[in-house]
């Protein structure tokens, strides 16, 4: 296409020689972008539908209350793995939430200058560390020194996975709280730290809860950090210094086994896990869009 001003002015009034091609190109481009949106949805629906199809038949009370059956016997469930996942999440939250939220408060309220920038960057980088590496790290830190796999080590590994998300969410939501709330509090003579905790953090809390839900949804499905920390357990266990079963590890064990019976149970496990994760995501999303996302107005 020519670059002379006359030609450009001309093309605005009447279609020039390149005009038709230009519009065609644009239409092809739009179609390709739309196509990629459709392509992406195919695996999502394929996975969800397949998991529902294979897993739904196995959903029963026994699945949630029984122990895994020995090879060759039918029946049994993943009760211990369901409970184990909940315990591991609880441990991860107990360790990860104070650190994650505290660091978020540091980034938004306390930190200054270069140190804050470095810590914020580190939090992002930590979020990109492969979870298998976290597993190896926690193994060499905990399991080697304690001489056994334990739920505590597993929960610690999951905490490390969730901390970056919690930190960044907390920071972002604290930043959304209008500063005049703090100013009003300070003007009333409230000490700065009380303003931070009871005004700023309190206002941002619903939003932070949303972020925590998303972080929990992520760690609920993590397998790699657990296989050599919490390991697995065929029995009920509630002691945190012992190996503990979890849904993802149990699914992995059964999915890669040669027994049809076990594979069917793994599908049911996958269905339960996906339901849990999607439920957390959906709730968090709805809460956020309802304006519960802190001071997002």
């Amino acid at each position, binding site marked *: 296409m020519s670059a002379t001003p006359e030609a450009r002015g001309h093309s605005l009034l009447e279609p020039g020689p390149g005009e038709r091609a230009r519009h065609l190109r644009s239409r092809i481009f739009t179609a390709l972008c739309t196509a990629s949106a459709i392509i992406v949805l195919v695996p999502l629906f394929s996975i969800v539908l397949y998991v529902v199809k294979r897993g739904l038949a196995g959903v029963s009370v026994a699945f949630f209350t029984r122990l895994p059956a020995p090879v060759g016997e039918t029946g049994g469930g993943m009760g211990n793995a369901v409970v184990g996942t909940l315990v591991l999440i609880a441990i991860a939250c107990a360790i990860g939430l104070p650190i994650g939220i505290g*660091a978020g408060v540091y980034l938004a309220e306390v930190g200054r200058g270069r140190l804050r920038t470095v810590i914020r*960057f580190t939090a992002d*980088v930590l979020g990109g560390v492969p979870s*298998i*590496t976290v597993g190896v790290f926690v193994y060499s830190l905990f399991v080697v020194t304690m001489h056994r796999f334990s739920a505590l080590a597993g929960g610690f590994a999951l905490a490390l996975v969730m*901390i970056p998300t919690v930190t960044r969410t907390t920071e972002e939501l604290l930043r959304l709280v209008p500063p005049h709330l703090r100013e009003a509090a300070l003007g009333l003579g409230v000490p*700065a730290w009380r303003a931070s905790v009871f005004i700023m953090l309190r206002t941002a809390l619903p939003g932070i809860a949303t972020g925590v839900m998303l972080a929990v*949804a992520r760690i609920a499905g993590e397998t790699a950090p657990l296989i050599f920390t919490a*390991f697995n357990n065929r029995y009920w266990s509630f002691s945190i210094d012992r190996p503990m079963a979890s849904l993802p590890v149990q699914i*992995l064990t059964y999915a890669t086994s040669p027994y049809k019976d076990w594979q069917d149970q793994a599908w049911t496990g996958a269905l339960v896990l996906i339901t849990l994760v999607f439920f957390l995501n959906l709730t968090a999303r709805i809460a956020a869009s309802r304006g519960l996302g802190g001071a997002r107005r």
Partner: protein
Amino acid sequence: MSQVEELPVPEVTSEPAPPAPARPAPLGRPTGDRAFRGVMTLFGLTILAVPAMMVAQLVHTSKLSLAKFGLSFLTSTKWDPVHQEFGAWPFIYGTVVSSLLALVIAVPVSIGLAIFLSDLAPSRLRKPLGFLVELLAAIPSVVYGFWGIFVLVPLLRESVEPTIIKYLGSIPFFEGPPLGFGMLAAGVILAIMIVPTITSVTREVLKAVPDTHREAAIGLGATPWDTIRYAVLPSARSGIVGAIILGLNRALGETMAVTMVIGNRPKAAASILAPGYSMASVIANEFAEADSDLYLSALAEMALLLLVVALVMNLAARWLVSMTKNKMGARS
């Protein structure tokens, strides 16, 4: 007009001011504030300490292997636990090739999707579609792998791979029998898993491009493609590169799904249809069973390698993305 009202001047008394009432705390920061700041800073420093501790701990654990193999660990192709020979090359190769395959598939789709979500889709569609993409990111890795074994691998083995072999089988990259399990399966699964990452970061970057750029282009009679090509993409380019690096980073470290479909054979084959092995997979499969210190230490060195690569790539990507966003923020 010239009259200026004189303000009454308060009389200055020679009396000394009454002593200020005793304050509970001195004028500096009150104790509560200082404690609060101290504790929060401690939490912040914890974030700083974790990666440092990881590197230190993994270096410590992989000491034996680092000392025995040195740099040849990276290039040696022999992985023989029985004879205590450990070389990481087949795993590095498997990780890199499967991740690059994933990028080849995922990058065009993700960028197309991000442009669709930020510029082209009707506004009613944007939110639900964005949410569906987020759900894709939320599916646990082990479920991806499970689906891969039962749906993707048979599909590849029975229809996709025979077709590829029929038309391209003479090229070394597409040689061999259609096994299903292999690099291609791993690449496809990884592609699906990294699409949400690349899409969401790209979308963020595209959103940061000021609308005035778009409006100016449209005002000149630009079509949607012209607008994106000439007004949006040039300023978003380095941010998109950052998004791609973040996606690559996710692919390199992904463990369970890859382990379940890549075939787990420690051999670097040229063909993407052949089974391979990845660094994360070999750690997942063999770490708990490593029966000698050297074996364990070789696997820990692999984890260290993954960690260092992840740290470097993340630094680069975050820097690119934040630079792009800042530049745009300053301009608008």
